[in-house]
């Protein structure tokens, strides 16, 4: 991957809405064939960054190039090779499912001959074959989401940008999407994904950028992030919601780091079982306890002070 060409490069990228700075001078690069994820709490600036890359939002300052071009000068040239799944669906409600796919292909100047079989393939992928003649406004939320994702694939884009693609999808639909994304990746498609689901980030992304308040907090592979920003294991203990806070100071002295959540305390250590044993020796007996491996959730908590899904 490292020797692949750079498709997206941002330098000191800033976006302000009036006085408010949504993206505060970020730098990043995405190479061809990579799948790159944006993680961050609500309002971190993920969608804003995605929209600047998609050439639908102008930056305030800094530089960005997509496919070697400046989006402010070459919007259509860039957009021709992007497939965009926005955070909120913007399907054409006046048209049917099938017509939505068709007309989107036409926006990319595709021939009817190409689009016809493509529609069949995408209806199948989106599991909307039976709904093909239904008006979009009569679809369920998850179906609309699936159609929005399918629509972005009509033009076989080089770069696929998915802003929280699986929000509102049921588990089966999520796995169908993941499977499709893996296959696209194998074919050399570059993926840009934002998500609030850490399993998704871990499964899909080669590299993750954790953002908070418009800045980059960390950037690495999922495994690299866990290695650098968390311990090997985590001991989760519950003492009951009123006692958690009272006991916390005592626990803090026994390990690298703790996080006090409303319902439980997370204790970070390389050997969770040993730590639990030590608790027992000190006469601290939690109501429930659990030892698990560190996950991106822990990295996220450390970097942003917030849980991933809030």
């Amino acid at each position, binding site marked *: 991957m490292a020797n692949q060409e750079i498709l997206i490069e941002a330098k000191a990228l800033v976006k302000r809405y009036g006085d408010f700075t949504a993206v505060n001078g970020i730098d990043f690069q995405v190479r061809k064939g990579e799948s790159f994820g944006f993680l961050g709490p609500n309002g971190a600036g993920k969608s804003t960054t995605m929209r600047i890359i*998609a050439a*639908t*939002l*102008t930056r305030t300052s800094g530089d960005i190039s997509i496919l070697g071009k400046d989006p402010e000068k070459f*919007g*259509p*040239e860039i*957009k*021709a*090779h*992007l497939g*965009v799944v*926005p955070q*909120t669906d*913007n*399907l*054409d*409600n*006046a*048209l049917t499912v099938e*017509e939505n796919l068709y*007309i*989107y292909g*036409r*926006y*990319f*100047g*595709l021939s009817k001959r*190409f689009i016809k*079989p*493509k529609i069949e*393939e995408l209806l199948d992928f989106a599991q909307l074959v039976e709904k093909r003649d239904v008006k979009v406004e009569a679809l369920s939320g998850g179906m609309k989401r699936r159609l929005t994702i399918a629509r972005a694939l009509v*033009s*076989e*884009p*080089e770069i696929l940008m998915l802003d929280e693609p699986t929000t509102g999808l049921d588990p089966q639909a999520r796995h169908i999407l993941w499977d499709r994304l893996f296959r696209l990746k194998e*074919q050399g498609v570059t993926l840009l994904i934002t998500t609030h689901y850490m399993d998704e980030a871990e499964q899909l992304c080669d590299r993750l950028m954790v953002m908070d308040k418009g800045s980059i907090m960390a950037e690495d592979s999922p495994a690299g992030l866990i290695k650098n920003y968390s311990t090997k294991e985590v001991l989760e203990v519950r003492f009951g919601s009123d006692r958690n806070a009272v006991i916390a100071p005592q626990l803090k002295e026994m390990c690298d780091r703790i996080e006090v959540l409303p319902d439980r305390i997370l204790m970070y250590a390389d050997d969770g079982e040993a730590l639990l044993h030590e608790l027992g020796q000190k006469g601290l007996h939690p109501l429930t306890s659990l030892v698990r491996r560190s996950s991106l959730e822990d990295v996220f908590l450390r970097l942003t002070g917030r849980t991933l899904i809030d």
Partner: protein
Amino acid sequence: MAPRIGSLLLVDTERIKRRGAFAVVEVRVMTYMKYLPALLSVAIANPFLYLLAVGVGVGKLINTHSGGVDGVKYLTFLAPALLATAAIQNAMDEVVFPTLEGFKWNKNFFAMNATPISAKQIVNGVLIAAMSRVLFSVTVYGAIVYLFGGFTTARGWLSIPTSLAAGASFGAFIMGIAAWAKNDDTFFMVVGRFVMMPLFLFSGTFYQLSTMPIYLRWIGWLSPLWHTTELGRFLTYGHHISAMMFVFHIGYLALMFTAGIIFSHRQFARRLAK
């Protein structure tokens, strides 16, 4: 599943730059087709009722009392104005609704904006589609005027191109306003009541503008309806206008159209970039 070709080979950006507006026309036409029966009935019923009431009813009164207006039958006098009014009304409907819908209710302009289609092409596409609907409506209108005997010579049909000019110049302009308007719903109620209505009543539609008191005539001078009506009357039955006025009318409509297009292009680009 067919093997992947990839957008680098599939998508021809140069072609989209030339022809992208027609994809927008296509989606507009697809949308029209959804309410084709309603569209057809309005296109026929509207002129029919109008001509029965005003053209024939009022016309009979005027023709018998003063032998017509401007040296011709009242309906002949009225026809270019009626067609132009219908064109403006139609252009307004087909430009304002898709624009409000595209930006606010449906947000499909934002979907288009994520594709190689440019803001200008969206404007041009919506306008071209609207004008084809206008052409259809005024042709039906013309045919009905003909049946009512309003066209005394074949020149009467020239009121179709003049009314198209009214629709296009007004449509190009109001489209930018629709993109610019923040509070759409109340805004267009105001436009309907305080712009469209006076425009219709004070543009020399039912009688010549020169019979209007001078302090009201400016409404007509600003209105594309008056300029087109004057041109239409000149072309269809030889209503007298000076060569200078002829040029002025055409110039005014051309200017309004061009300014309207530029204004709309800007408003669309601005709103899409938000």
